[in-house]
């Protein structure tokens, strides 16, 4: 019994104080941990991080609504920021350095921290020819060698689908997916875990994989290549924002300023993400080198249910 009391006392000593900033982040964990440490060194404000997927973060925000805890949110999906803004949950703020960020990547209430692009990831040891475009994977050499993350579970994969539907047209996109399915493509779970079979060589290629994770693995010696088809791909910018019920908006603003500073953006670039600021160099192909498909992600989001059920029909 005394042990139990001791444990409870130990647990209660974890309580956050008013001088801490709470950040919910769907970005790379070591990135946000490092930025939090550095920010505390500079300003003395302690930053507590909750790390999760975009879905987990949104679920938590929803459940906490009656007594909010979070001050800052960094999500991996542009639409989630838009939805929060529409719900009236965001504080209007444009951090210092926003003038260096392209217009498409900022709003009055949120701004990109970094950008991921969706790539074709190919295993070099797989005894298959190097694919150049999405459609190449319908060739017999890639029979049962392709996978793609599930757009229902991966926001990025859904963006890829929206981009394809816009650039190729509806019919051509569904025809391509039908073709891929006929060639034995497998739809697996969410993003990062979808890459594991490609790394181990169970599959030769992944479609619509988030590129920065693959670059990180390549840098650690994995035999993979990250290919951006000339026919175009889509980007998934990662918005950061301040919640308007934050009890310490000033510290939250200072934190966003720091995230968008050259220092903060260099840390983003070191994770192989494309930094939001133009004046911070990329460590991988940047926005200029990629053929980008621009599409109306809002319109796609509005049709989400139909698109996903069509996708399920085609890939079953």
């Amino acid at each position, binding site marked *: 019994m005394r042990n139990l009391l001791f444990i409870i006392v130990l647990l209660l000593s974890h309580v*956050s104080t008013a001088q801490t900033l709470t950040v919910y982040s769907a970005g790379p964990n070591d990135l946000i941990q490092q930025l939090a440490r550095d920010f505390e060194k500079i300003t003395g404000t302690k930053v507590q991080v*909750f790390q999760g997927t975009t879905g987990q973060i949104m679920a938590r925000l929803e459940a906490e609504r009656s007594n909010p805890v979070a001050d800052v949110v960094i999500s991996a999906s542009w639409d989630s920021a838009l939805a929060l803004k529409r719900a009236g949950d965001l504080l209007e703020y444009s951090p210092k350095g926003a003038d260096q960020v392209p217009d498409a990547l900022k709003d009055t209430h949120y701004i990109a921290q970094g950008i991921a692009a969706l790539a074709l990831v190919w295993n070099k040891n797989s005894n298959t020819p190097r694919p150049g475009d999405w459609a190449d994977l319908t060739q017999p050499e890639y029979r049962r060698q392709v996978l793609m993350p599930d757009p229902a579970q991966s926001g990025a994969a859904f963006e890829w689908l929206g981009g394809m539907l816009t650039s190729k047209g509806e019919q051509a996109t569904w025809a391509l997916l039908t073709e891929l399915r006929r060639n034995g493509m497998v739809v697996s779970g969410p993003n990062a875990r979808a890459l594991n079979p490609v790394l181990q060589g169970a599959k030769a290629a992944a479609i619509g994989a988030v590129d920065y994770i693959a670059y990180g693995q390549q840098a650690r010696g994995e035999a993979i290549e990250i290919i951006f088809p000339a026919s175009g791909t889509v980007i998934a910018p990662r918005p950061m924002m301040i919640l308007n019920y934050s009890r310490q908006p000033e510290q939250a603003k200072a934190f966003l300023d720091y995230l968008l500073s050259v220092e903060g953006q260099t840390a983003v670039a070191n994770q192989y993400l494309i930094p939001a600021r133009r004046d911070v160099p990329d460590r991988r192909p940047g926005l200029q080198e990629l053929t980008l498909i621009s599409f109306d992600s809002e319109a796609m989001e509005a049709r989400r249910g139909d698109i996903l059920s069509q996708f399920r029909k085609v890939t079953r």
Partner: protein
Amino acid sequence: MNTLSTTHNTSRFRWHTLTAQVPMGIALASLLVLVGLPLLFVLLQVIFPELTRGSLANAFSPLLHNLADPELLALTGNSVRLGIAVVIVSALIAVPLGVLRALTRLPGAAWWDVLLLVPFMIPPYIAALAWVMTLQTNGFSQQLLGVAGDGLVFSFSGIVLVMAFNIFPVIYFAVSRTLSAVGGRYAAVAQVCGATPWTAFWRITLPLSLPGLAAGLLLAFALSIEEFGTPATLGPAIGFEVLVTGIHRRFSDWPLDMPGAAVLSLVLVLLALLAFWLQHWLLNRRSYVSLTGKPAPFEKADLGPWRWPVLALFALMVFLAVGVPLLAVLATASTDTLSGGLQWSNLSTRHFTALFANQDGALAALATSLSLATGTALLTGILGALIAYLVVRSSIKGKSWLDFLSLLPNTLPAIVIAVGLILAWNQPFWPVNVYNTSLMLLLAYSCLLLPYPVRYTGASLRQLGDNLEAAARVCGAGFTQSFIRIVLPLIAPSLLVAMLMVFAIASRELVASLMVTPAGAQTVSTFVFGQFEQGSPGVGMAMSLVAILTTTVLLVGLTGVGRRRLPGVG
């Protein structure tokens, strides 16, 4: 010897309402806080979709719309199919093992018990991932033996097998502990009366062990319809979705569909209720008292030359349930790159180095998980034993509600409990701040795992004769005193095994942890999950291995302190 008479009354002796009132109050209050509160808030959320926004508008509107969800039937069918298949396969594995363990002189018996506790410590999604990496094309099995089982691991049978390997120990421990308790006394009597050992076993020993077996099967069923990790890892590739993964999708895919998730949760609860009711109906038709508390020397059968095939069977099952997953985890954690495969040149301690450099607080996460698991085991152990005792022995009205409430968490997906806990504890009116502290994790784990001690001790109480308690009462002992001095020592074997299971499962729980871990803290499971999410499977697997080994060593240490082997071994 009227123990085998089919009476409705399981026990002629009952504590009066008066003496049991205080403990009853404690048990009920704890249950209401642990289980009732989060459930109440989930229900409120279902009825009032705008509740989190502080409004009671649009009551019931999403509920009706979601009951017409076309996926509902398909998901429910899949869950039931999966649950039944897993229970059958698990029972086929576990019952023979449990019987052999209890009634024969198995060499190294205590060690087999320890080994069969390990599956509880392996997170299901890690086990599933380990099987994938072993069996998929170019997986470890193909690299080592030239055989791949791609078609097996990604199939309904694959999901059932992987889950059964993870769940069968629940039945094994229930069966072996109950049989040890039933012992061979009645069987010996039967043999004196001319029955063959075989007949004695089928007609006497096995029927008397039904409470334990039924409790084990029920737990296994509830566990398999509630498990998220394996179907989530193996299901998407074959388009197989169950209620839990459906709930999860609605809860964590943007945009959220909380009402939809809640409706699916209600269906899950109903399923589990059905199983609970079935168990209740089976067990309450007769009395199973076979333990009088008097010492009964019980000679276990000698295996003789059968020793080797029996040992081979145990070794095979341990290899499948523990060996393969751990070896795959070890292989992933100790190779430099996945694409490099199992080559000596690809061997590396890089991932372990990263871990012990305390990258992102790995060791802190381990400490958090272990202390929480200890706290959960103590809390649920004390509370569970008390609840089971009240349910079996007191004549208080509404005690079946206690029983039901304590089983309920076993049927609720962890994510639902987590959301309920957030809704409940993150209210401005609480005097102390519980939300956003690690106490939330303790509440979540205790709620989720309370059924184990309740089921296990309940089963052994049903076999415990009440003469001793009656005697204690005649000698002037009260409810509490006789509970502590007489009942607890007698049910200790089952209770301890249940507490060890709670410890093991709490040390690796993922789904609820992801939701309620306070900002700034991490558990082992959230740490590992984060590593996978960010494409460092090596570090994730290294952490899993360290955690599994640490908890195993701790368990062996814990059980070795008091006695030199696991409890409950006659």
